[in-house]
């Protein structure tokens, strides 16, 4: 009796220690840290010295045109393909060295999620749960409900639409209770309602504290969801950092409506630190730092001009994306040198 009581106690302690180590590793280590990642396919340089820094809690957008090297980078991150140079760590573990252990706490899919078409969704998830271990099998119904596939759980995946497979891909990822979710173009091929639902789901996941690495070429999706981004073009990262910083660097404009726009135009042009002042149908458009904008508002008050509205107008991600990628293409095309973004600060 004593012996049987001691056995489980010992196991529990060992498991607790392992669990503590694991939690500690996941709590302290950076979810994704890539350094100098390179992937060559003979003469083709698919990924060119990519550095990524995904921090805990990020919804990190990995942005780039088709063929920019996003999927190849994600495949290297998940240990599916070997880098030609450089390294990548997930929570401090290199998938090439640690194997499946490096994927603890990590889930997701690259390109379209793939399943066994001759098995039902439920059977597919049972298989994946068996390969995950832990409590995954007990969570199949829950995750199918989360992606609203519960009613079709017994249907063969071969008959699923593209959108249903994407959602099943998310369900398969959620089985692992991930701390880091890697999603490669999750909304591609979805109808507008499906895209909206997918965004909502990603928002919910982020709200639960899951770090999300989201690869996409859909700029509104990234602008809507992500707080940090890396923009990759022709295999190189041309920007990495906070999305808000990028938009500020792209030119923080303001729109100003006053009681007398004609006179306000003159005042603004005289004001130090205020640039690119123009008068349009909806008032003035101008650039300037916050401090200078404050001084302008005081000057307008002194001139007896009332301010009706003063609103910041940040550059859209789309503007910045094209500025970065087209700028690099132009540079690349002009002299064959390494592509670089045209923004000053934050350009990698």
């Amino acid at each position, binding site marked *: 009796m004593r012996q049987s009581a001691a056995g489980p106690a010992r196991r529990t302690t060992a*498991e607790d220690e*392992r*669990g503590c*180590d*694991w*939690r500690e590793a996941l709590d302290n280590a950076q979810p994704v840290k890539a350094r100098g990642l390179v992937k060559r396919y003979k003469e083709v340089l698919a990924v060119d010295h990519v550095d990524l820094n995904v921090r805990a809690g990020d919804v990190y957008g990995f942005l780039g045109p088709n063929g920019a090297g996003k999927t190849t980078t994600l*495949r290297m991150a*998940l*240990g*599916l*393909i*070997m880098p030609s140079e450089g390294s990548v760590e997930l929570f401090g573990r290199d998938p090439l060295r640690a*194997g*499946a*252990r490096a*994927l*603890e*706490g*990590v*889930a*997701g*899919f*690259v*390109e*379209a*999620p*793939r*399943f*066994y*078409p*001759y*098995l039902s969704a439920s*059977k597919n998830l049972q*298989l*994946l749960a*068996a*390969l*995950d*271990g*832990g*409590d*995954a099998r*007990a*969570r199949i119904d*829950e*995750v199918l*409900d*989360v992606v609203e596939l519960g009613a079709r759980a017994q249907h063969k995946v071969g008959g699923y639409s593209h959108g249903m497979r994407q959602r099943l891909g998310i369900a*398969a990822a*959620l089985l*692992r*209770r*991930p*701390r880091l979710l890697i999603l490669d173009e999750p909304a591609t091929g979805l109808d507008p309602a499906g895209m909206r639902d997918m965004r909502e789901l990603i928002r*919910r*996941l982020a709200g*639960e*504290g*899951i770090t999300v690495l989201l690869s996409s070429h859909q700029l509104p999706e990234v602008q809507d969801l992500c707080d940090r981004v890396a923009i990759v073009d022709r295999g190189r990262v041309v920007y990495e950092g906070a999305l808000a910083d990028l938009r500020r660097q792209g030119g923080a404009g303001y729109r100003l409506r006053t009681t007398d726009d004609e006179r306000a135009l003159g005042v603004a042009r005289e004001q130090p630190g205020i640039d690119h002042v123009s008068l349009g149908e909806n008032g003035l458009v101008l650039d300037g730092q916050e401090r200078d904008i404050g001084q302008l508002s005081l000057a307008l008050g002194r001139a007896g001009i009332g301010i009706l509205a003063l609103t910041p107008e940040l550059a859209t991600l789309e503007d910045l994306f094209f500025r970065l990628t087209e700028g690099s293409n132009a540079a690349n095309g002009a002299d064959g040198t390494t592509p670089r973004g045209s923004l000053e600060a934050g350009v990698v």
Partner: protein
Amino acid sequence: MSSVASASPLAPATDARRRPSTLTVYRWELRKLISQKRTYLGLGLIVILPLFFVIFQSVRQNHGHGGESIFAAQITQSGLATPVLMLTFLVLFMLPLVAALVAGDVVANEDGNGTLKTILTRSVDRGQVFAAKTLAAWTYAATAVLLSAAVATVAGVASWGFHPVRSLSGTVVSAPEALLLIFAANAIYLIPLFAVASIGVLLSTATRNSAAAVVGTVGCVILLDIISGIPGMEGAQPYLLTQQFEAWQGLLRTPTDWAPIVHSAWLCALYAVPALFVGYLVFLRRDVAGG
């Protein structure tokens, strides 16, 4: 309410999960095989051939049987001659083909469909997946051989009775002992067949193309058989895989001739082990870019 049910389905895990064993991965490889229609194509052939043989022989029961082999001569005297004769017919081409159908497909099919990346992003190592797939291919080959033997035995006994048979040495063996020897002989035949399946797994891993791997495996068997028939190549015969396909006949001699069986065992290992080792290395280092 369980802790699982009470936790948010989206919340990240707070504990390390217990990783699955290779046995678990193997079980799921078998479940995948069972769920695929093409799995039954090879097994269907293996079942139909003995049945066709028995029906055909029953129809022409009064005709002579030529006496090409000792078991052919006994075909209507004991139903236990049927599985031995069937094994003789099937060893060189049909059973290697059936083994190759799954072994050549087991990795390449997953690679082509993109499901390899799905399973390799779970909590299993590549080595576990490769081991499970190899074991599944072997299991399928063993199932085909034993199913063939079982169907031939049942059909033969149903047609011509459960009677003693004469062994290859001419001695009479009781029916129960003959039955035991028949299944032991089939088990011995699995040794070279596992080597064939191992070559199939290697080609499946290396070519990433199911058709190429299946054809390549069968082609390899045919090539070795052709080599064994080339005049002047007699010296190479003991070292050819196809020559081991008849090692099981040592069990049907009195006394048992173990020499060809032992020779077959180590020679087949010389084919299977390097094939699996190279296949393992390829699988371990390969880029999974399909799908």
